[in-house]
């Protein structure tokens, strides 16, 4: 049985689709702010899909940063607790379309969801193909990083 003791901040998303990559864009400021805490791993999960399952399953604490479609106005910050994140795979045409939510579903069924799990994200404004964030999301990055640090504080990791 693998040990579940890692503390991971996982930024998700495709930085080629602008705001879709907001989770990854939050990692750099967090690296700056968490320099004194080497026990916290700050990782870019990109769009790795199922390959992220071992990372999810080895955590005691997992903080996910990602774009979230909650049907809210663009730029709305969304925070979801362990029990609020919907876990489902969706109808897909290719098995390559395994979503991160399906990864969480697998971890859930297998009884391996991290004890401390939280998602901090934002409703995107622009997910078209291209580099960089839209202005509204770009401005939001420091706040998202603050929210992430607040979660870590609540978990008594910082």
């Amino acid at each position, binding site marked *: 049985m693998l040990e579940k003791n890692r503390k991971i901040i996982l930024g998700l998303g495709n930085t080629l689709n602008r705001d879709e990559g907001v989770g990854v864009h939050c990692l750099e400021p967090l690296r700056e702010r968490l320099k004194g805490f080497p026990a916290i791993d700050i990782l870019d999960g990109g769009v790795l899909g199922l390959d992220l399952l071992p990372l999810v399953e080895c955590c005691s604490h997992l903080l996910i940063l990602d774009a979230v*479609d909650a049907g809210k106005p663009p730029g709305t910050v969304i925070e979801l607790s362990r029990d609020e994140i919907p876990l489902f795979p969706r109808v897909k*045409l*290719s098995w*390559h379309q395994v*979503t991160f939510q399906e990864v969480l579903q697998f971890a859930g069924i297998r009884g391996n969801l991290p004890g401390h799990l939280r998602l901090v994200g934002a409703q995107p404004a622009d997910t078209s193909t291209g580099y960089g964030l839209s202005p509204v999301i770009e401005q939001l990055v420091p706040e998202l990083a603050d929210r992430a640090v607040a979660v870590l504080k609540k978990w008594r990791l910082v």
Partner: protein
Amino acid sequence: MSQRIVIDPITRIEGHLRIEASLDAANTITDAYSSGTMVRGIEKILIGRDPRDAWAFTQRACGVCTTVHAIASVRSVEDALKIKIPKAANIIRNMMIAQQYIHDHVMHFYILHALDFVDVVSALKADPKKTSEIQQTISGWPNSSPAYFADIQKKVNAIVESGQLSLFSHGYWGHPAYKLPPEINLLAVAHYLECIDWQSQVTKIHTIFGGKNPHPNFLVGGVPMPIDMNSDQALNAERLSIIADSIKKLNEFIDMVYLPDILAVAPYYLEYAALGEGLGNFLTWGEFPVGDADDLSKFVVPRAAILNRDLKNLIMPDPRDPAEMKEFITHSWYTYTQGNDAGLFPWQGETVFNYTGPQPPYEHLNVDEKYSWLKAPRWNEKPMEVGPLARVLVMYASGHEGTVALVNAVLKKLNAPASVLFSTLGRTAARAIETKVFGDLLAKLYDDLVAEIKAGRTETFNGEKWEPRTWPKRAEGFGFMEAPRGALGHWIVIEGGKIKNYQMIVPTTWNGSPRDHKNQPGAYEAALVGTRMANPDQPLEILRTIHSFDPCLACAIHMIDAEGRSLGEVGTGFNIVCHR
């Protein structure tokens, strides 16, 4: 009035594959259209680059089946520059290819395709004792006790009851087209969960030979992994034993889980043995060269074309013949300098984008005009199906011993003639059959590699033509690869040491191709015609056939949906079903 169903998994952004199907009054599909809604463009990125680097770019065409474009690429360069790779390197590549097939096919079945036939919610009604009896009858797989299946049921039930797992509200559970008894549903759900553990243990062949996974490293002229029993930087005894163990685990799962499951599920879906194959034409570029890559007589999967389902007449296709191989763009968002109905041989291929489709979000594509980013590749101006069914038919028709035995055993079990192979079920069975064939081959390749090492032939790289000054001024090459989804070809033109032109014709371009200059449909489009839908709002029947092809789409977009809604539903009065 006919209605049009749309399945487009990613509607907020550009999707990747979109299926539109017209139904008659009895809900039978009369016409289907397949559209690739995202452009690849890697060919353009490659122009002017060093051909020895091309594999690293091309394998980014996909984030999951990451070896296939690298292998096709290095083979195209080796073909152009007449480079022969050492035998050990060839065996190592073949092993990586075999592992890719097995991993990919098993995951495709359990993660995607099985759920088209398996009703997860029904599994909750199963008697675990009966499931245990079924498991113990069909194979010697150790996870077979009533307690084991009861535990699986409990885990699934806990998540259903939590309400958090909308897995069960987003499938088409309870759809009348689900036919399995609850006990077999439970069996399959257990294996769906088991394959997750299995897959994490079996990618080690790629990690060891290629240094990492996904996206292992490759090398023009051989493989980047040296063999040295006394080095911890090379392929040594310890790593060989990890590989041997990995092969054992791969094959156990095929023999005791995957194949038996297919045989347990198939009898309930025999109607899919009569539909879902439309073209009757099949193509393979061939795979597993035993000797030199150009010695076609020694391929395990022969290079061949089949026309009109005629298995008695295998034709040898020539991918280097401009008269045979052409890509058309009549219905694709490109322009050719020679005009809209011209067909171009890949060495003379052009990649000039010309999007004339509607601005998203849109209801329907205008299928009378251009409607896809996929070109329409044609062999002798004919659309061809590629993939597991094509390979198994070619191996079966050419008398490959293991394939013939397996195909006959499956047909006997289903009490059906060979003609049932030309179907959705035939395609799904062919995938399992070739997985077994390639699993056995992988074990043999391992022995071959060990024999080479024992004989002291440990060279894995031929550097004779590494330096560009040794190359001709101009060279043209073809790199083949039977990717899990089918025949993949890379055509390269090298001039002055750089890439002058590069064209990739990938399996999903063959199978998912739009109509061509003669208005001939592609394989998906032809396969769907005649399928009757029980409920057009839940197009399960379409998914079954499309999934049986195992579409390969770049997996690039995955945003979390907080509400668990079905996205992008647009009402028009007709039934439009769009799913992310």
